[in-house]
C-alpha cells in the first residue's frame, strides 16, 4: 500500500516537475576536466554527478558524461577534447589545464558546431564561453565588509597566497583597492600563507611580535584557521579573521561564536560551479542568447548562515553549493 502510494507520488512529482525546454533533450554534454587530485576538484566532480544525473533522468539533456585526463597536461586534454568531438557531443564544459594551450582543440570543436563553456580554468579562445572568477572583487568585498562592521577602522594584517600566482595578485589588488577607498584601515603587515593553514600559522606567528594591535585579518582562503591559531598562541586579542569556507575554518568560527559571540564572514568559490557551467551550456544549446563572459557568484557565508553551511560541509572539505537552472539563468541575465 505504502509502496504504491510512494510510486504514485513520485510519478506525480515527475509529471509535475518543471520540465525544461524539450529542445535540449537530445543533446549530449561532456565535462572535460584536467585534474582530480584535491578535495576541491573531487567536490566539483561529485557536484557534477549530483546535478546532471537527475537532469539526464528527467530528459533535460541526453547525456552529461564527465571525463578527467589521466595526467594534468594540456596536450592530453587537447586530445581528450578532440575525442569528444568524435564522440559527437553537442557541448563541452571544460576546466582547462592551460588558458591558451587548448585553443587549437577548442577551435576544432567550435568549427564542428560544438558549444564550449570553460569555467574556473578558463580558455582564451574567443569562440568559447568563459565563466570566470572575479578574484579582485573577492578581495575588495572583504574590506567592504570590515568597513561596515568596524566604523572606527584599525590595523589590518594581510595574508597572501602563493607568490607569483595570478590569483594571489588579483585578490591582493582587490584588498589594496578596498583599503584605498577606506582610509580608516591601514595594512600593517603582509605575509604569504600559501593557502595552507600550517604555512599561514607559521608566517603569522613570525610577524606578530613586530605588529601593533591588529583589528582584522584579510585572507585568501585556506589560511584563516592557521592565523587564528597563531593569534591564540601569542596570547593576543583575537582580531576579526575573514575565512575562506574551509571546514576547519568554519568549525573554529562556530566554536568562537558559541563561546563569545565572535563575528566574521567567509567567502570563496564553490566547487559546484561545474554545475553552473553545465546549466549555462544547456541554456546555450537551448538557443538562449548568452554573453561570452560570465562571472561566478561567490559563496559567501555570514553569521546567520554559518550553521547551515557547516552542517553540509564535509570534514576536511570546502563549503559547497550546487546551482540550478534558475541560478544559471539569473547569472546569464546579470551579465547582459
Amino acid at each position: 500500500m505504502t509502496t504504491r502510494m510512494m510510486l504514485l507520488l513520485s510519478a506525480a512529482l515527475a509529471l509535475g516537475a518543471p520540465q525544461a525546454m524539450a529542445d535540449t533533450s537530445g543533446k549530449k554534454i561532456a565535462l572535460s576536466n584536467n585534474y582530480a587530485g584535491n578535495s576541491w576538484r573531487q567536490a566539483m566532480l561529485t557536484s557534477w554527478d549530483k546535478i546532471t544525473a537527475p537532469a539526464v533522468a528527467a530528459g533535460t539533456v541526453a547525456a552529461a558524461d564527465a571525463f578527467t585526463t589521466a595526467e594534468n597536461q594540456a596536450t592530453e586534454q587537447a586530445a581528450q577534447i578532440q575525442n569528444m568531438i568524435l564522440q559527437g557531443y553537442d557541448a563541452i564544459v571544460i576546466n582547462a589545464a592551460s588558458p591558451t594551450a587548448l585553443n587549437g582543440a577548442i577551435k576544432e570543436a567550435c568549427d564542428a558546431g560544438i558549444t564550449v563553456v570553460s569555467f574556473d580554468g578558463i580558455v582564451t579562445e574567443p569562440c568559447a564561453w568563459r565563466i570566470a572568477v572575479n578574484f579582485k572583487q573577492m578581495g575588495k568585498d572583504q574590506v567592504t565588509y570590515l568597513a561596515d562592521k568596524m566604523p572606527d577602522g584599525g590595523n589590518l594584517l594581510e595574508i597572501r597566497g602563493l607568490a607569483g600566482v595570478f590569483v594571489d595578485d588579483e585578490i591582493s589588488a582587490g584588498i589594496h583597492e578596498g583599503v584605498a577607498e577606506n582610509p580608516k584601515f591601514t595594512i600593517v603587515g603582509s605575509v604569504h600563507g600559501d593557502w595552507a593553514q600550517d604555512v599561514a600559522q607559521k608566517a603569522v606567528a613570525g610577524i606578530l611580535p613586530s605588529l601593533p594591535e591588529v583589528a582584522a585579518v584579510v585572507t585568501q582562503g585556506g589560511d584563516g584557521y592557521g592565523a587564528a591559531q597563531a593569534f591564540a598562541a601569542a596570547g593576543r586579542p583575537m582580531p576579526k579573521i575573514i575565512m575562506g569556507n574551509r571546514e576547519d575554518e568554519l568549525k573554529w568560527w562556530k566554536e568562537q561564536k558559541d563561546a563569545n559571540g565572535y563575528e566574521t564572514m567567509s567567502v570563496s568559490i564553490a566547487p559546484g560551479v561545474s554545475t553552473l557551467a553545465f546549466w549555462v551550456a544547456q541554456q546555450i544549446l537551448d538557443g538562449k542568447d548568452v554573453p561570452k563572459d560570465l562571472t561566478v557568484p561567490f559563496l559567501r557565508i555570514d553569521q546567520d548562515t554559518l550553521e547551515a553551511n557547516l552542517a553540509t560541509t564535509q570534514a576536511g572539505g570546502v563549503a559547497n553549493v550546487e546551482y540550478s537552472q534558475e541560478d544559471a539563468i539569473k547569472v546569464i541575465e546579470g551579465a547582459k
Partner: protein
Amino acid sequence: MRLSSETLRLLVPALSLAALLAGVFWLQPRAMSYTGLNLLFNLAVPIALATIAQMIIMAVNDLDLSLGTFVSFVACVAATFLHDTPLLGLLILAASIAVYAGLGVVIHLRNLPSIVVTLGMSFVWAGLAVLILPAPGGTAPTWARAVMTAKPPLFPMAIWASLGVAVLAHLLLMRSSLGVLIRGVGGNQRSVERAGWSVVRARALAYALAACFAVAAGIALVGLTTSADANIALRYALLSIAGVILGGGEFTGGRISPIGAVIGALTLTLAGSFLSFLRISPDWQIGAQGAILIAVLALRLALNRLEKGRAR
C-alpha cells in the same frame, strides 16, 4: 616465405596500430572519415617528431630526458619571437640547436652520463621557457598554423605529416652515410673510431639532428594549439622514449627503426583515444595505457625469441 628481421621488427608495431585503429573505428564509426582521422592523429604529429628526436639520441646510446622541456621551450619561442620577429626567433632556435650539438660534445669528451646532463638541461630549458612566456599566451606563426590546419587531398594533414616524417627520418638515418655513422657509434663506438671517423663529430651531429626534429615538434605543436604554455609538452620526454621502444628501437646498440618510431608515437596517441572511447574511468586509464604498452612489448619479445631461434 622468410621475412627479414627488419620487417619482422616493424610488423609488431604496425599490427598493434592496425588492431587499435580497428578497435577505434568499431567503437566510434565517426572516426572513419577525413576529419575524424585528422582529429585522432593531429596531436600525434609533434609526438612523432619528438619521438624521432629521441630515437636519434638513443641511436648513439644516450637518452634525452630534457626533450619535453626543450619542446616546450621551442613552443614558447615559436609563439613569441618566431611570430613577432621571425629573424630573431630563427636565431634563437639555431642557437638552441647549437647548444644541443655542444651537449653532444661535452657528453662525449667528459664521458658524462647523458641522463644526468639532459636532466640538468631540462631545468635550464624549463627556466628559459618561463622567462620567455611567464604566463600562458603568445600566438602561433601564421605559416605554422596554416601548415598544421591545411586540408590536403586524399588523406588529412596528420597522416601526410606522419608519412613525411617517417620517410624523411628513414632516408636520413637508414639510407645516408651520416645515418650509418650515427648508428655505428651506438653499435660499436670503438670500431667506428678505429676506422678513422670522428666520434665527437658524429655525436655532435646526432644531437644537432635530434634538436632539429625537436624544434620541428615544438613548432608543429604550436601550430596545432595556436598558443603556448611553458609546460605544454612536459609529457613528451617519456612519451618519446615509449614511442621508440614500442616502434622496435632499443636502448643500446644503435638498433633503431624510424618508421617504427612514428608508428609507435601514433599507437601511443591512439591508445589514449581508444581507452577514452571505451569509457574507462580515468582512475584506470593510466594503468590500462600501461597494460597496452606491456602487451605490445611482450609480443615483440616473443617475436625476438622467434627471430633468434631461426638465426641459430
